[in-house]
């Protein structure tokens, strides 16, 4: 067997020769001998010191520095191989490389990386694939990344506004209510994002971009509300009580169900309503863009809960309990802020004429019917029978979100 030779030429150990040595030695079996050549000053002394530290043997050549340029003989030590002895691969990098229960010691390592044994244990509460995963989560993230919009350029801030003052007041009240709800919708994914085992990286990414979407919604809505007014509308005890039960829900599965399937699901109908009845193009465009984002948020919620329900027969009864618990908690609160209800009617009416108000009122009733039927169809997708879907939808918070 011919002995491996490493020629360092005039490269010194403090100028990168250690990188060259490590790269070449990585392919040599422990115990094998390597003859090292080079002419850098003090190379033999430096090699002896470096080999000692790295756990390699080193015998300087008797005639180091002679024309042969052989500095010495290195015997490859065990340490490098030993360090990676019990290392394991943290699943596979692609979406199908996800494992159902990633180890706490995989921690922040990239999925598919080789992880050195002995890493510290991380405590990510959401480390069970069934609780968080959906097979289209990667696609949902890519769609989200591709449809990020810049409020500055995407929205016609200077579109003409010709509506009467009372319509602007009603709009500002609705926008104030939306900001409060968007804030809840930001906090929930932001909180759980930090609990997802990073092995489920696409889930972490979706929750992160969902929070970023909501941040953008808050920005655009606030800016529109302040276009013609110096201050915002009202926030009520009932509205905040409803959102508090959502923001404080400790279980990701339940929170995702209440927020994305029921709350944001209902908001899809509300956003469609606001597009139809927007008093100006600026507001209409904001609602259109938000609705596109919200549809993705709903899609991820439905998809991961659907997958979960297929694997866990007890899920639907736990979801039912969550709705009932929240309903009981909110039973004695006022529900939707009366100012918001009236503002929606006024927006749809566009005029204070009795016939217009009657039309607006009917439109808001129709909105509530649409919200209800949307919730029912999503509940059925999760596996609730028709009758249960009807009953549970009716128990959903009167605050919509």
């Amino acid at each position, binding site marked *: 067997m011919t002995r491996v030779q490493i020629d360092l030429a005039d490269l010194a150990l403090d100028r990168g020769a250690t990188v060259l040595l490590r790269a070449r030695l990585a392919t040599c079996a422990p115990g094998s001998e390597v003859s090292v050549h080079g002419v850098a000053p003090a190379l033999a*002394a430096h090699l002896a*010191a470096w080999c*000692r*530290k790295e*756990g390699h043997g080193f015998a300087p050549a008797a005639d180091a520095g002679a024309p042969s340029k052989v500095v010495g003989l290195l015997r490859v030590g*065990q340490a490098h191989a030993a360090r990676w002895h019990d290392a394991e691969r943290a699943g596979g990098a692609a979406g199908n490389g996800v494992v159902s229960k990633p180890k706490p010691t995989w921690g922040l390592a990239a999925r598919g990386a080789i992880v050195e044994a*002995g890493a510290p244990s991380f405590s990510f509460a959401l480390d069970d694939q069934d609780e968080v995963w959906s097979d289209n989560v990667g696609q949902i993230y890519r769609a989200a990344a591709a449809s990020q919009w810049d409020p500055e350029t995407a929205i016609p801030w200077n579109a003409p506004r010709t509506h009467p003052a009372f319509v602007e007041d009603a709009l500002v009240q609705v926008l104030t209510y939306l900001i409060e709800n968007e804030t809840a919708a930001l906090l929930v994914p932001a909180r759980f994002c930090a609990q997802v085992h990073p092995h489920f990286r696409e889930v972490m990414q979706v929750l992160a971009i969902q929070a970023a979407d909501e941040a953008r919604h808050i920005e655009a809505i606030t800016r529109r509300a302040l276009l013609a007014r110096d201050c915002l509308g009202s926030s009520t005890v009932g509205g905040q009580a409803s959102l508090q039960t959502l923001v404080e829900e400790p279980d990701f599965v339940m929170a995702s169900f209440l927020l994305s399937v029921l709350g944001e699901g209902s908001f899809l109908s509300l956003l469609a309503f606001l597009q139809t009845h927007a008093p100006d193009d600026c507001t209409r465009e904001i609602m259109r863009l938000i609705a596109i984002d919200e549809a993705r948020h709903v899609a991820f919620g439905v998809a991961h809960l659907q997958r979960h329900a297929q694997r866990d027969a007890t899920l639907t009864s736990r979801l039912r309990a969550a709705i009932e618990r929240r309903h009981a908690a909110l039973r004695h609160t006022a529900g939707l802020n009366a100012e918001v209800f009236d503002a929606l009617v006024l927006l749809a009416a566009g005029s204070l004429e009795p016939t217009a108000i009657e039309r607006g009122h009917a439109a808001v009733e129709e909105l509530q019917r649409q919200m209800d039927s949307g919730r029912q169809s999503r509940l059925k997708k999760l596996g609730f029978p028709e009758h249960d879907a009807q009953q549970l939808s009716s128990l959903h918070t009167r605050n919509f979100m």
Partner: protein
Amino acid sequence: MTDTLILGAVAYDAKVVTIWDGFQKWLAQRGLAFDYVLYSNYERQVEQHFAGAFHVAWNSPLAWLQAQRIAARQGRVARAVAMRDTDMDLTSLVIVREESPLRTIEDLRGKTLGVGAMDSPQATMIPLQHFAAHGLVAERDFAVRRFDVLVGKHGDHVGGERDAAKALMRGEVDATCMIDGNHLVFTGEGTLPRGRTRVLTQTGRYDHCNFTVLDGAPDRLVTRFVELLLSMRYDDPVARPLLDLEGLKQWRVGRTSGYAQLDAGCARFGWIDDFVNAVAAR
């Protein structure tokens, strides 16, 4: 407490506590009760070793020679039972500036040599013995400038070597001494500019620290301690962080063949005679 093996060590750095706490836990998990006492200097540790304050000393090479000589004077026996792989076959380098006129050992005559702490085997004593063996005696044939950082630590603290290296670049000394590996450390961290220094001479190989026991130490505990140390494997993820912290890949059986230069230096210069006499007389 003869069921507990007690180690003496010098706290040359705060990490010493982390290291021995880690070993205490690791050894306890393997059934060996272990405790340690820390001293601020090796002389106190050697003295207390002979006073019976603990069983095993984690000794510098100089502390080893002190213990060995005191034991011999008292008719006792000191043994080196284990050591680090990284403490075997070290050398020290004597470094000059690239443009220095010094080319051979002889050229140091009349010049100034920078050394580390007076009690540093690697940065002071072994290099001075190296020159003496080549006919150049410190303070007679050349001047010595000491960089005494933390005397009593036997050079475990690298500060003296670093200060001497800085003095070399400031032109305050003509040559300076350091462990071979520290030449790479100092150029890596920028204390010495890369490519601007040269090796004037290199000492012969020597060994560094060892675990020292005296006759009368509890055999069963010492044997178990050494067995467990030798069983520590770098491929064990529980042992590896301890080995990394203590700076070795594998514990070795102790040997005493690597202290000849330091021994000869101590004999020639009498560096430890007063201390040995004082403790041996007790």
